[in-house]
C-alpha cells in the first residue's frame, strides 16, 4: 500500500507549527482514522475532538487542506494526491492542536429567547407534518460550527462576536420563528442584538454545512424579509399555511420564559 503524508498543525495559544507524519494508507479510511492512528503510535498527546465517528455529533470539525470538514466523514481516497494538511478551525481561539475554544457558540445559545408555547393539552399538541418540516430541517444541525467558522463576519473580525449570532444561530432563530407553537417574537432582537444585518448572503455557510441545511435560502433570507416586515406587518408572515398564534411584542422577546 502507498504512503500518505499528514501535515498536522500542532501548538497552543502561544503559537505552533506543522508536524509531518508519514503513514501507510489503509483501505476505506477517513481523515479521523489516520489522526487516531497517529495518536495511538507516534503522538498520544495529539489533541482532537470526536465522538460518534459517523457525522452525527459535530465534534470533529477541522480544516482539511484549508476547507472546514468533518474529519470523520472525509475519505482519504477522495482527497487530492499529495500531503494532507489538517488545521484547527480558524475562527475560534486555539486550545491545543486541532481543538479550538468554541465557547462563543455556547454563549450565543444562552442568549436565545426560548420557545414560548401555549399550555399543552392533556393528550399532547397537534401539529401537522407540513408545519413541522421547516423546523425539522434546521433541527438537523449537529452543531459542528463549521458555518460559523467560514462566516467572514466573524472569521476576520473578532470584534463582531459581541453582537453577531452567526449562521448556526440564525437557523435557530428561524426555527423558533417558524415553530407552529411559538408565541415569542424575536424579530427586532435578531436585528438589533444578533446582527442579522451584517450577513450579506455570501452563502459560504450553506456550502460547508454537512447536513445540507439551506442556511441562507431557507433561514437567513426569510428572516431578513421577516425582520423588515416587523415594522409594518405585525401579523404572522407564514400566515396562511401555518396555524400560528399571535406573537408577543419584540420587547418581551428577550425575556426567558420561566422554567
Amino acid at each position, binding site marked *: 500500500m502507498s504512503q500518505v503524508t499528514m501535515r498536522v498543525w500542532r501548538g497552543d495559544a502561544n503559537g505552533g507549527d506543522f508536524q509531518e507524519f508519514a503513514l501507510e494508507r489503509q483501505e476505506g479510511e477517513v481523515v479521523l482514522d489516520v489522526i487516531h492512528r497517529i495518536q495511538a503510535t507516534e503522538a498520544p498527546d495529539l489533541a482532537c475532538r470526536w465522538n460518534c465517528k459517523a457525522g452525527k*455529533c459535530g465534534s470533529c470539525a477541522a480544516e482539511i487542506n484549508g476547507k472546514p470538514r468533518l474529519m470523520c466523514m472525509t475519505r482519504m481516497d477522495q482527497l487530492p494526491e499529495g500531503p494532507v494538511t489538517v488545521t484547527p478551525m480558524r475562527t475560534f481561539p486555539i486550545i491545543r492542536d486541532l*481543538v479550538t475554544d468554541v465557547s462563543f457558540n455556547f454563549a450565543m445559545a444562552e442568549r436565545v429567547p*426560548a420557545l414560548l408555547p401555549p399550555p399543552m393539552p392533556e393528550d399532547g399538541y397537534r401539529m401537522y407534518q407540513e408545519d413541522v418540516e421547516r423546523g425539522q430541517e434546521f433541527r438537523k444541525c449537529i452543531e459542528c460550527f463549521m458555518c460559523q467558522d467560514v462566516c467572514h463576519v466573524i472569521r476576520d473580525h473578532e470584534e463582531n462576536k459581541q453582537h453577531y449570532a452567526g449562521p448556526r444561530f440564525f437557523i435557530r432563530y428561524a426555527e423558533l420563528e417558524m415553530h407552529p407553537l411559538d408565541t415569542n417574537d424575536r424579530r427586532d432582537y435578531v436585528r438589533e442584538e444578533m446582527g442579522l444585518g451584517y450577513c450579506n448572503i455570501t452563502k459560504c455557510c450553506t456550502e460547508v454545512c454537512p447536513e445540507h441545511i439551506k442556511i441562507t435560502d431557507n433561514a437567513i433570507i426569510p428572516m431578513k424579509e421577516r425582520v423588515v416586515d416587523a415594522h409594518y406587518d405585525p401579523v404572522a408572515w407564514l400566515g396562511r399555511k401555518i396555524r400560528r398564534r399571535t406573537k408577543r411584542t419584540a420587547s418581551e422577546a428577550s425575556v426567558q420564559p420561566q422554567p
Partner: protein
Amino acid sequence: MTDYEHHDYDVLIIGAGGAGLRAAIEAKQRGLSVGIVTKSLLGKAHTVMAEGGMAAAMGNVYPEDNWQVHFRDTMRGGKFLNNYRMAELHAKEAPDRVRELEQWGALFDRTKDGKILQRDFGGHRYARLAHVGDRTGLELIRTLQQKVVSMGTDVYMECKVLRLVHDEHGAIAGAVAYWRPTGQFVTFGAKSIILATGGVGKSWKFTSNSWESTGDGHAMALWAGAELIDMEAIQFHPTGMVWPLSVRGLLVTEGVRGDGGVLRNSNGERFMFNYVADMFRAETAESEEEADRWYEDHSAGRRPPELLPRDEVARAINAEVKNGRGSPHGGVFLDIGSRRSAEFIRRRLPSMYHQFMELAGVDITRESMEIGPTCHYIMGGVKVDADTAATRVPGLFAAGEVAGGMHGANRLGGNSLSDLVVFGQRAGLGAAAYLEGGSGPRGFDRGEVEAAIVQATAPFERESGENPYDIQRDLQEMMQANVGIIRNGPEIEEAIVALETLSERVRNVAVAGGRAYNPGWNLATDLPSMITVSKCTARGALERRESRGGHTREDFPKADPEFGTFNLAHSVADGRWDGEFTTVRSPLLVMPDELKALLEEAH
C-alpha cells in the same frame, strides 16, 4: 493540602446525555442548585447518536397499544430478569415524558391527524417508537440541552470526574474532577450526586459506542460502595457495519428492519425464519408472504422474524457466518433497496443513506448493506430503587444506561431513550426528596481527593512505561475474543486472568507531554474504569452458567429457570475503592400477581 477550584451544589449531575439533562431539568424545577459535568462538549454525549426512536405506548398509530402491552414486551425482551417495578414505571410514564418534550421545542414526525408518529421496532408488539427520521437522539438531546440552557444551569464541559467523595459517615459529599482543556483539578461539594454516565462499550473492539463509553460511572459507583448488577448482560446489536474495516461496528439502525428491510445470507435466503425460538413462535410469521402483509397491516399477519429481539437476531447472524453463509467481509446482507422505493428510503432513513454512501460507497436504495453484530449497550449497571433511582449509598442516584435493572437480560430497541427521560426525571425527584428529608453530607473526605489525584498524575511521574493506547487495544481485542457475543467457561476464565495482567500494566502507564488537552493522558485516566467494569462483566459471565438475553454460553446453551430468579450483584467490601470485589446472588423483586397475569396473557 493543595487548594483546588471548588464549587458547591445541591445536586451534581455527572453526565449530559438524555438521562443527565432530564434529571437536571427536574432538579432545577424543584428549586435546587444544579451543576452538570460532562467529558465532552454539551450536546455531544452518546445520546446524540441514537437513531431509531423512543418507545412509548401512546397508541397514536395502534390505539390498542397501552402500558400493559409495553410492560409485557419489555419483560419478555429482558427474559424476565428485569426489575419489574422499573419496567412498570417506564411503560406507564414514557408517554408523558415523550409528550412533554414538545413543550420544550421537539418536533417529532407526525401522523396524518397531527399526533406524534410511531414506528415499528424489534420486540415491540405495536408500532411504538416516536421518532424524527433516523436522528431521534439528536432531537432528544438538543431539546433537553436547549431547555437546560434556557434555565440557566451551570455546565462543566470537557471536565472528567475521577472519583466520588464521601463524608465521614459514608454518605456522598462530592466529587473530584479535572478540566480536559487545562488539566487542572476541580472539586465539587454536592449534597447529592446523580450518575448519568452512559455505557461501557469502548472495552470491545467492534462497538457502536464512542470514546466516552468507558464505564466511569459504573466503576465510580462500585468504588463508592454501590452494587452493580447484571454486568454480563451486554447487548450486541445485530446490525453494525462490517466494512470498511475502519468503520466496523458503526451502527445501522433497527429502523431499517422496522421499515421493511430483511436479512439474507450468501444464498439469498431470508434465514431468520430458521431461528424462531419457541418463546416467540406464536407471534412470528411463518412465511415471507405473511411477514410482508404485516408491514401493511399488523392484523393481517404476524411479525417478520427479522424483528425478533436483538439477542435472537444477533445470534442467528453469528450462526450463519460461522456456517459459511456469510457475506464477503464476514457479515450478512441487509436489504431494503429491493423492497422499498428510493424516495421512501431517503426520507425515512436519511442518515443511513449518507453513512453508507459516504463511508462505504454503497447506495442502499439499490444495493444490500453488509452488516454484523456490534457491541452496543449494557443492560447491567448500578442497582437502584425503581421509584427514586437511589443506590444503596446515601445521596447517590443513577439513571440512564449506567443504571441496571430496567432492561433485564436484553433491552428492546427504543426502550433506552424513553428510559433516559423516565428515570432521569425520577432521579431528579429522588434527589430532591432526599434533600427535603434534611439529609446531606457532614464533611468532605480530602484524603479521597488526594488519592485520586495522585493516581491520575502518576503516569507523568514514570520515566518509562507503556503507551495507554496499547493497553486499550489489548483490552478491546481480549474482551471481543473472550467475552464477546458467544462465550464459554474456559475463555472467560482466561479473560479473568488477562484482566489481572492488564491491571498490572495500567499501573505502569507512562504519558508524555503536559496535562492540557492530552488524549493519551485522558485515556490513561479512563483505563482503571474500563478494566474494573470488564472484570465485573467477566465474573458475571462466568457465574451465570446459562444463556439468557445478551449473555450466551455455548457450554450452557439453554436458559436455566434457577438462574432466572436472581441478578448477580458485585460490590467492593466495606466500600473501599480499587479493592477486590465480591459477587453474590441477589434475588429478583417479587412481582405482584396482577402484573404476573399480564405476562402470562397469550397475545
